[in-house]
């Protein structure tokens, strides 16, 4: 069965400092990986995805993520965090193998707090 782990419940960072949100996954086939962000009382908004190709994926709002197959990780990064980046971040995976089909599985989420 496919699964996603986000080991940190919360990440605190000062504004202007680099931000990293960790994600590891487990699938039977090849993974399609996604990052979503959730602001209070809002639905999930898509940030970026990895399908194939370059391991470094660039997305919305200056975010990027690096796919590492050997470590089964897909960490989200931003070189210089803004206070407005404070939100809940979710990593998600689709498994191209097995019977999982189109199922999109989410991690437990990481709350990011950027302090001025």
């Amino acid at each position, binding site marked *: 069965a496919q699964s996603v782990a986000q080991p940190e419940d919360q990440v605190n960072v000062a504004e202007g400092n680099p931000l990293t949100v960790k994600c590891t996954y487990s699938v039977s086939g090849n993974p399609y990986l996604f990052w979503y962000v959730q602001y209070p009382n809002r639905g999930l908004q898509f940030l970026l995805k990895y399908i194939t190709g370059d391991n470094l994926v660039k997305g919305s709002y200056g975010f990027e993520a690096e796919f590492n197959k050997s470590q089964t990780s897909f960490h989200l990064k931003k070189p210089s965090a803004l206070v407005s980046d404070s939100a809940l971040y*979710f990593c998600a995976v689709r498994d191209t193998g097995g019977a999982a089909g*189109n199922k999109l599985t989410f991690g437990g989420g990481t709350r990011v707090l950027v302090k001025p």
Partner: protein
Amino acid sequence: EAGVAQSPRYKIIEKRQSVAFWCNPISGHATLYWYQQILGQGPKLLIQFQNNGVVDDSQLPKDRFSAERLKGVDSTLKIQPAKLEDSAVYLCASSSRSNIRDKAFFGQGTRLTVV
């Protein structure tokens, strides 16, 4: 393009009552998902439709939850009878095809409180 529409935004019911949520996906989107998001947790897939057929409902508590997608467009999710532990945000999402590369678009969710 218009986003995924959900209603109501908020609902408070007593335990053992029934409740229904409605979702209108983005026009032309064949795949529709219902997720349950309990406070402090990630979204958990309840059911996934491809057009009006069910693709995955392995985590749907079928003794109390039901869902349908008439004519492959709008969908309703029903809980009967509700339990306290059903308090959560219910998110509807849609994606354009069965292509698993496609991202899912989410609605704002329905926040259910069972008292």
